[in-house]
């Protein structure tokens, strides 16, 4: 059968099976059924059948145009170009051009904190949807993956200690350390990516780079808070630990810990923009921070020389404060509130300054 005959046959088939009153989705289904049927009959099964494929696609396009013409109201133009033809009665600008009057431009309104929080929330939802649809059970992985990380990290204190660490039950001890470490680390990673999956959102004039960095990093705070609460509830339920002495303060330290991670990531994002080799340096720095964060030990157990070194890490102070406010049995003698806040403020101020400095860097333009 020649291509022209195939085309004629398909057109007559479509005229009878795809009437103009079908809605668009039903029409698409009818077209897909036609393609499937052609494939089943071996008309378009091999690459050599491209002529048949072309004939079918051409007939489908022709039918689409016919339906479009049939559905047009009587007083409308036949083609869209008549809307832009000054000689056509349907010329869209017949009653004057829209820029004939000039109006003074308005000044954009300042965003309020509530609007900003809503915007961050909305961006975070977009980012979560994107992560959650990476595979079929993506939403499950959003929680399962970090949960497995936390459980693996929790296993390490089991090898190092017996049932308790300075009278603290080892299981909740490990969960607090792991959740704090991972919150810091993932916040830093999110900030370091400069927004990652949310980068295209920068096309919105109402969204700044800072917004996408915060929204991306927010994921770690939300996920590890949820996982921490879930695991601690299980621990309390099974009698492996007690309820916290002061939960709000513990959560406050977790948020501060997240801010430190965010600031650290922002600093390295700016540094990597200046010289990409800082990415390698970050690899070592973040491991040193992890090992000195007190995830597996408390500083009071360490020899003096080592203790002086690990106490330089603000993360250690926040972890030890969190444990002090969770457990009744433990009060950290090494952690310093003054040092923690001083170090945090310094990091946050440096992060913001580097972010501002980084704003006018030469940007990549995407196609």
């Amino acid at each position, binding site marked *: 059968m020649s291509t022209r005959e195939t085309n004629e046959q398909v057109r007559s088939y479509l005229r009878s099976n795809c009437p103009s009153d079908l809605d*668009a*989705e039903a029409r698409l289904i009818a077209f897909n059924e036609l393609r499937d049927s052609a494939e089943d009959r071996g008309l378009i099964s091999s690459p050599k059948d491209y002529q048949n494929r072309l004939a079918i696609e051409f007939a489908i396009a022709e039918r689409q*145009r016919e339906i*479009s013409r049939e*559905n*047009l*109201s009587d007083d*409308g*133009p*036949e*083609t*869209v*170009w008549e*809307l*832009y033809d*000054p000689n056509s009665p*349907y*010329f*869209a*600008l017949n009653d004057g*051009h*829209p*820029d*004939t*009057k*000039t*109006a003074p*431009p*308005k000044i*954009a309104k300042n965003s309020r904190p509530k*609007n900003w929080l809503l*915007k961050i929330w*909305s961006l975070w*939802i*977009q*980012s979560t*949807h*994107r992560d959650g649809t990476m595979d079929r059970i993506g939403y499950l992985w959003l929680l399962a993956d970090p949960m497995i*990380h936390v459980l693996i*990290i929790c296993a390490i204190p089991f090898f190092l200690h017996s049932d308790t660490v300075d009278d603290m039950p080892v299981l909740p001890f490990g969960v607090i350390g792991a959740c704090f470490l991972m919150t810091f680390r*993932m916040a830093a*990673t999110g900030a370091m*990516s*400069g927004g*990652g*999956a949310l*980068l295209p*959102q*920068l*096309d*919105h*004039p*109402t969204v700044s780079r800072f917004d996408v960095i915060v929204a991306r990093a927010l994921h770690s705070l939300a996920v590890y808070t949820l996982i921490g609460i879930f695991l601690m509830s299980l621990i309390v339920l099974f009698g492996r630990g007690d309820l916290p002495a002061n939960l709000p303060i513990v959560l406050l330290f977790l948020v501060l810990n997240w801010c430190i991670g965010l600031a650290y990531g922002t600093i390295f994002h700016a540094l990597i923009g200046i010289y990409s080799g800082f990415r390698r340096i970050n690899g070592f720095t973040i*491991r040193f921070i992890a090992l000195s964060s007190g995830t597996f030990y408390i500083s009071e157990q360490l020899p003096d020389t080592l203790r002086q070194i690990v106490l330089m890490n603000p993360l250690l102070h926040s972890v030890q404060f969190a444990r002090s406010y969770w457990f009744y049995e433990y009060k950290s003698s090494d952690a310093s509130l003054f040092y923690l806040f001083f170090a945090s403020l310094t990091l946050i101020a440096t992060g913001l300054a580097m972010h501002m400095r980084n704003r*006018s860097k*030469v*940007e990549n*333009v*995407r*196609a």
Partner: protein
Amino acid sequence: MKPIEIQNATYFVRNSGTVHQILANSTTAADPGWYLLSGSSRLHTIAFLDLLCGKSELQNGFCRIRGNISWPIGRMGVFSSVVTGINAISHFSILYGFDRNFGIEFVKEHLGQYELLWKPIVNWPTQIKLKFSLLLALVADFDIYLIDTNLAFPEDVDFSRNIIGLLRAKAKAKTVLLTPKQTQVVKAICTKAIVVADQKATITDNINEALAINNSKPINIGSINETAEIDADDGLLF
């Protein structure tokens, strides 16, 4: 008070590892009106839109935008493609401060295949995505519209007629920048042109001349490799 004002602007962008200078000590200001945005290459057009919507910043000088400016309508990156149309409307309503329910009703009324709104955008036909993008821009209230897409859809005359009618009503006496995707449309609709070429942004009344300059010195635009940025995490626990 002009809606777009650029003074002593020096502007570089990077593309496929090469740095290009788009503006060199350039000064211009645009009154409200409907402009064709023409660049000597597509890179110039995209970079200029990036500058106006705040995605990129000048290395020197300043770019002042007075009023609310839209995103470059037609860019699909603004839709996180995995979300549904309804989710996207909610997101845009938060970003641009319009009523979510009104947005849904408006889009349902004009989109035609409104049942698609409950399906992920990634599965939509490209034409529907473009129509959706235009409709969302018309729900929000902007003083400056950046349009980087078709306004005329040959396969859907009714929609094309509606959209131009709505845009004319909404953007009356405001500023519209239109990239030359459809020559016939921009010739009919634009009265002035912003030309970004030879490291300068200039305004001209000669649309034909601006169209001749458009993409006259094409630059091969590479897509940026974001994996290095996204995968900052190396997957190790410590």
